């Protein structure tokens, strides 16, 4: 008796809570169930539209899951679930409430397929629904979507959202999105002119894109206003483009610096033409890969630290290989540059093939830690985090190396041996060991460069090949034997390259840079900053 009463009470309570949205939920479930029967992208798209038109924020879950390819139909009963892959099976949950609904084998469910057009439809639909979300980032994303896909029907929801918006920056974005929608509506001309002014103030590529399409469609005053606004934006963008080229140049320069800085030691200071330098970089990159593999399987929580852990290991691995190469091959060949060149070339082939035999010939995946992914904007300049960190890292390595060379006893010995080997030997410096350790240092630096380059390039046995020519170019251009020369050389080559690229294209740009360097070397054979030492005497 008691039990019945409790159940009865519960039912009443449920009815009371559901009365506001309950009918809606049943409707939504009805619409979601249609996914099971929808064939082809256009039918799925129709269901998405229907769901979005319901205007209930609850549809966010199934729609977001659909966009991510996580919406499934169970073959047995044609019920629709949100699924999360867990190994061989998929964990199912209710599309509206998110309640767990057990597991299913992959063969027992079918994924509802989406393509780009559908993803766009879903994104637009979600945009309208998430305008009043709690998280400002979601609201920003919604405003952004609505700006890119203006629709006269959006004005109403945007007005309500603007009225209740408290964060100023989000409000500005919402107003821009509203202005975009006004432009495609049949509002009076005065409204449209105000909208163009608002969008013109935004001043980015998306604004140009929108205004260009408005310009093509409208007439008279609106068209004229759009044309002037585009011209204004383009002139400011031209200024930012120059800034962007400089940033790209600096970023390319930092990559060149990283690749070349180890060579500045082995070739620059010691005068060894080390063709295996690129392979030291490659070994560093593979060390990163191995470290990440271990972290992935054993300590997934440490993934963001993987690069920090890989740095000392990469240095050690490459330095040890360098030491062995020096002791095993190069020390017998000092003063015979041609033979050194051939021998180190051979070593580079052996190292490449060894890596190929151990890890296989295909690319290995080295992931970006979260702090190296994505980008941020400075004005109209998009700066990607990985490039910024590589620049910081390259400068740090340079600073440390400069300190070692100039301020430590070991650096002093190194420089002494470079300047005058016999005098240094008579002073009691063990020159063979200084040679070996210098070579190991140069190789180790190349190894840590590999850690950084694994973030932007392929990790394959051929990784080093791509950098060896550029590295020699930087060192020769900057002045053999001078670290500052390498720094200036790397950045100036990077910037010149990136200024040429938009006009001449990547292929021609590279050729022009090469020709310029050849001409420069004709004029100043010792590079930008010449230094006296063994390299010069040889």
């Amino acid at each position, binding site marked *: 008796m008691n039990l019945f009463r409790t159940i009865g009470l519960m039912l009443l309570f449920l009815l009371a809570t559901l009365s506001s949205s309950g009918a809606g939920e049943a409707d939504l479930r009805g619409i979601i169930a249609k996914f099971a029967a929808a064939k082809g*992208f256009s039918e799925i798209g129709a269901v998405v539209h229907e769901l979005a038109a319901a205007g209930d924020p609850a549809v966010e879950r199934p729609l977001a899951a659909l966009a*991510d*390819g996580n919406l499934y139909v169970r073959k047995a009963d044609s019920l629709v679930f949100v699924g999360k892959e867990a190994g061989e099976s998929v964990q199912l949950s209710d599309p509206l409430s998110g309640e767990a609904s057990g597991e299913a084998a992959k063969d027992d469910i079918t994924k509802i*397929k989406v*393509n*780009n*057009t559908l*993803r*766009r439809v879903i994104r637009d639909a979600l945009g309208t629904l998430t305008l009043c979300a709690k998280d400002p980032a979601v609201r920003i994303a919604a405003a952004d979507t609505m700006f890119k896909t203006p629709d006269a029907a959006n004005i109403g929801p945007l007005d309500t959202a603007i009225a209740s918006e408290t964060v100023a920056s989000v409000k500005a974005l919402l107003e821009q999105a509203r202005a975009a929608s006004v432009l495609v509506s049949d509002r009076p001309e005065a409204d449209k002119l105000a909208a163009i002014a608002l969008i013109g103030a935004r001043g980015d*590529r*998306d604004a*140009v*894109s*929108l205004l*260009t399409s408005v310009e*093509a469609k409208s007439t008279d005053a609106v068209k004229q206003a759009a044309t002037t606004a585009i011209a204004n934006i383009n002139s400011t963008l031209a200024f930012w483009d120059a800034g962007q*080229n400089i940033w*790209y140049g600096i*970023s*390319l320069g930092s990559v060149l610096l990283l690749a070349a800085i180890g060579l500045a030691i082995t070739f620059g200071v010691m005068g060894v033409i080390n063709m295996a330098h690129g392979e030291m970089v490659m070994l560093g990159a593979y060390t990163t890969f191995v470290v990440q593999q271990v972290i992935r399987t054993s300590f997934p929580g440490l993934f963001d630290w993987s690069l920090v852990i890989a740095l000392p290991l990469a240095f050690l691995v490459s330095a*040890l*290989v360098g030491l*062995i190469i020096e002791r095993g091959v190069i020390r017998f060949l000092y003063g015979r540059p041609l033979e050194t060149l051939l021998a180190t070339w051979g070593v580079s*082939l*052996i190292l490449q*093939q*060894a890596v*190929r*035999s*151990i890890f*296989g*010939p*295909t*690319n*290995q*995946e080295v*992931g*970006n830690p979260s702090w190296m*992914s*994505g*980008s941020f904007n400075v004005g109209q300049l*998009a700066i*990607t*985090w990985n*490039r910024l960190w590589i620049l910081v890292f390259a400068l740090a390595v340079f600073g440390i190396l400069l300190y070692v060379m100039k301020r430590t006893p070991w650096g002093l010995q190194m420089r002494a041996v470079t300047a005058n080997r016999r005098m240094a030997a008579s002073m009691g410096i063990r020159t063979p060991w200084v040679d070996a350790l210098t070579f190991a240092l140069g190789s180790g630096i190349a190894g840590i460069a590999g850690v950084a380059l694994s973030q*932007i*390039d*392929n990790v*394959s*046995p*051929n990784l080093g*090949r*791509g950098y060896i020519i550029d590295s020699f170019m930087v060192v020769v251009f900057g002045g053999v034997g001078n670290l500052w020369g390498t720094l200036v050389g790397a950045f100036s080559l990077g910037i010149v390259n*990136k200024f040429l*690229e*938009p006009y001449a*294209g*990547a*292929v021609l740009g*590279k050729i022009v840079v090469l020709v310029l360097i050849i001409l420069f070397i004709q004029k100043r054979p010792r590079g930008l900053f010449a230094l006296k030492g063994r390299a010069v005497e040889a």
Partner: protein
Amino acid sequence: MRGNFSTITKMFSASVVAAGLLISAPAKAADDTIKVGILHSLSGTMAISETTLKDAMLMLIDEQNAKGGLLGKKLEAVVVDPASNWPLFAEKARELISKDKVAAVFGCWTSVSRKSVLPVFSELDNILFYPVQYEGEESERNVFYTGAAPNQQAIPAVDYLMSEDGGSVKRWVLEGTDYVYPRTTNKILEAYLKAKGVAAEDIMVNYTPFGFSDWQTEVSAIKKFGSAGKKTAVVSTVNGDANVPFYKELGNQGIKAEDIPVMAFSVGEEELAGLDTAPLVGHLAAWNYFESIDTPENKKFIADWHKFIKNDKRTTNDPMEAHYIGFNMWVKAVEKAGTTDPDKVIDAMIGVSVPNLTGGYSTMMPNHHITKPVLIGEIQADGQFETVSRTPGLVMGDEWSDYLPDSKDLISDWRAPLSCGNFNVATGKCGGKGTN
């Protein structure tokens, strides 16, 4: 360190053993085996792609032997390494044919390596099976092209992008690596797009060097080009190594597939294996085969491959399927001709039809190209492709593009009495020249 040394010694001893095998091979090679040459780079730049094909061939030959061989004889693979060195391809091809007396050769990847071996194959009259999508404008008597011609990949891909499903693209970026395949393909595509009414200012063509790794300027140029108020797409013929940095830069600069999709012709499962594909979901590729294709033939092929290579993570890809088709066609043609004599097998090849891995049959046409379905796939977060479009029927490979002025009148038919790879229907003469 010891690890490194031991691998080096292992390598040395392995190469010594390999050399020993090569020396001893001719001695025991009597008439009891049929030799099949495998001409794929196992070292150098192209090893990344070609090593897999060598392994796939070894697997196919193993399987054929398990089935009892061919004409009552065992098949024997002869593997050589042309080391990504184009002239060496010709030398090694000559060695395979003259010294090892192989019955057919499966090999090459880049167009330049194929061009370098062509004279050898016609001089010594042997057969080459070429498994990679290429730029067309060629049809040789001694070569069977099992990869896609431009009309089996590039043109349907562009058609898809122009369709409503593909996003009704109006503005095009043709981005490629600077060598013959991208240049010819882009020439064909440009002519095709213009024929479809795309204005010249809505097409941007850009080339980058091999192994290019700093894509910042190019990607921001694409972004800029895409902000003209029209739906924009990138058609990428960027090759091999340069793809990973290209896609990483796209992801970092926030170019999403919904806004500017990238349709690639040289990016397969193998290339994606070195990438975190989560930011790339929705970017496209056009191939004749995807590992994700759900057919019993494909499932068996993948299971066999994993067993053969002893690694469950290794992917399969389109050129592997091409070798699968080509090898089975060759086996069938040899059985039909009753001999491995290249002359007779070449004639027997035409019209041979074998199952492909996508649930249909591929047939060798008189122009030495095959029929294939064309699939458009979207990259998924797990590094696989999801097929979003598929041609309703099989597409026949068209060697001479209809969209290039030089080659539109040329046809190829290697059956008697025409027996010509470049017959000009306008002048009625054999010996036309295409573009490139």
